[in-house]
């Protein structure tokens, strides 16, 4: 047993462990009716945020492309999956909490969103950096605008699409299970040879191409997987609400998901999950604490915290402070006592410790600054003349 435990790479399983534990605790508590409704709703929100943040981090953290349209994929999933479940529930007169219908609509919503992910992945082959960012933003707004103007019989238009609502005592359990599924797929993808190909594209696309990596295939794969899970989050969302309304899925929502990914650390899944949960919790608590005339302070406090965290985490001037006080070093202080050098060297040769974390500087600067390239390009242009 001892030996078994020591061979486990805790770093990779900690996500599963925490989610499973959270599920166990909340599941038991809810079964004995000890959780207030507000907690159940908060758990629903947190699971949706987790799925969205994990799936977005595949695009932003691992592929290194900026996407501002994640809410658009969620919108596709929420509308198409929600419509699917609403039609089935009505046609076969099954209850809103029917598990089979829920599962089918998850699949339907996921597939529909994946198709849209494929479509938006195509321009991603041609565009880089901020240009791709604005295209994804535009895509999200187009999707939203189209659903907004549908007739009331088809997708409800501005009045919203009525969707089945699942019992809140069960839904968050499914939510946690879906988070586990998302995590499993994403983590296994990243740790596979495909994952290394994806991070290779992020680090240097041209070098990756030179080594024979099929860029087209991998970029599309990432967009398809990421948007499929965003679609699943959308279906889950539709099950938490009585109606799905297009105004929810605006670019501000995409940005909120991006904030979770960036604060959590690019390419750091545990960090992303932590920040997604904390941000959702924080927003919820700010709403509950600052009411009435103080409500206007909600955004102010949120904005100040956001700016503070980003500056603390990223400002070059604060590097020393950061290294002294952070979760990693604190954790190390608690657990450090004995370090076994033999085991550390053992790790370095293993394929599964290929670094998945990256410095944020590398992301998005590709193709924008590239000093040497521009310089050489200019030289060449000169020659042409």
């Amino acid at each position, binding site marked *: 047993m001892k030996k078994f435990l020591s061979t486990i790479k805790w770093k990779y399983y900690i996500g599963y462990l925490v989610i499973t534990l959270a599920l166990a605790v909340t599941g038991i508590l809810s079964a004995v009716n000890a959780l207030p409704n507000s907690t159940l709703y908060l758990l629903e929100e947190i699971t949706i945020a987790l799925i969205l943040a994990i799936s977005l981090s595949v695009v932003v953290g691992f592929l290194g492309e900026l996407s501002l349209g994640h809410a658009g994929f969620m919108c596709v999933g929420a509308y198409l999956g929600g419509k699917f479940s609403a039609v089935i529930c009505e046609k076969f007169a099954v209850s809103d909490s029917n598990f089979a219908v829920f599962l089918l609509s998850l699949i339907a919503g996921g597939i529909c969103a994946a198709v849209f992910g494929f479509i938006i992945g195509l321009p991603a082959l*041609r565009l880089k950096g901020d240009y791709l960012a604005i295209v994804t933003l535009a895509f999200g707004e187009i999707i939203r605008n189209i659903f907004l103007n549908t007739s009331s019989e088809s997708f409800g238009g501005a009045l919203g699409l009525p969707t089945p609502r699942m019992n809140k005592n069960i839904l968050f359990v499914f939510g946690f299970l879906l988070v586990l599924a998302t995590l499993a797929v994403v983590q296994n993808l990243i740790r596979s040879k495909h994952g290394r190909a994806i991070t290779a594209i992020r680090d240097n696309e*041209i070098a990756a191409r030179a080594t024979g990596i099929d860029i087209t295939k991998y970029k599309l794969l990432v967009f398809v997987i990421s948007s499929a899970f965003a679609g699943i989050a959308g279906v889950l969302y539709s099950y938490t609400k009585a109606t799905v309304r297009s105004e929810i899925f605006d670019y501000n929502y995409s940005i909120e998901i991006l*904030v979770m990914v960036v604060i959590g650390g690019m390419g750091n899944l545990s960090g992303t999950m932590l920040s997604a949960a904390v941000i959702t919790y924080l927003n919820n608590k700010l709403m509950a604490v600052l009411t009435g005339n103080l409500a206007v302070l909600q*955004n102010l406090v949120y904005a100040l915290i956001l*700016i503070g965290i980003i500056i603390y985490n990223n400002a070059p001037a604060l590097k020393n402070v950061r290294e002294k006080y952070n979760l990693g070093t604190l954790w190390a202080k608690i657990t450090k006592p004995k370090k076994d050098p033999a085991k550390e060297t053992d790790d370095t040769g293993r394929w599964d410790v290929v670094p998945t974390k990256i*410095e944020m500087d590398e992301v998005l*600067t590709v193709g924008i600054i590239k000093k040497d390239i521009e310089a050489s390009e200019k030289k060449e242009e000169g020659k042409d003349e």
Partner: protein
Amino acid sequence: METFFSTLINGLSLGGIYAMIALGYTMVYGIAKMLNFAHGDIIMVGGYTIFLFLFINPIVAIAAAIVFCVVIGILIEKLAYKPLRGSSPLAVLITAIGVSYLLQSFAQILFGSATKFVEIATFEKKLQLGAVSIDIPTIITLVCSAAVMAALSIFVKYSKTGRAMIAVSEDKGAAQLMGINVNTIIMITFAIGSALAALAGVFTLLKSPAITPTFGAMPGIKAFTAAVIGGIGSIPGAMVGGLLLGIIETFSNAVPALSPYTDAVEFSILIIVLLVKPTGLLGKKRREKV
């Protein structure tokens, strides 16, 4: 035909506003290499400043708005963006979003969120060109934005500061070695960007004289779109993109059946343009090599 021309004129005047905002976006992006999502909210700050000072005199109010926006722009740069110089563009992007929330909350705390109507001036006279009449704000907007574009191009190309800006945008490190104070140059860029936002606020109020704390958000996004269509970082590109987007929006709104889909139409045009020309209409083409 008459409707066509008046719609075209309306489109140009809206495009002039977008161009003005897009010029600010493009300046900041070109030199500081950051997407300043709070740019739209500077317009709002300008709008409220005009609201506060309008009782004195429209000219004073406009001047106050420009000065105040420049001060706010520099402050934001110093407090929120400068500490992040040298870290990732994504961190700066998120900070910019935070600043945008911050400005909106401050506006709501100070002024409430009810719409305020701010008519800087009323113009009853119109310029008649055959059957088409053009109102004065349209002419002011168009002339001003063209003049600003020209002035900016000349400034960047021929003045010492402007050339320093180009140097900073090409290579911050090398620029510093050549004796250019990068911080000052970036500060000047933000000052210019904010002044342009204040002017854009003036033109927006001439066209639709109502301000709310979120009043800059949508024009900001539209102008960002315009800047990208034109090729972000390019000054004439911002002008072309702005005018084009304004015309598209106006024509789409002029067809009743299409008007609910205006946003979709505009953003589709953006995607199509980028698919054909990945760096925008007038953007520089970049080849990548290892």
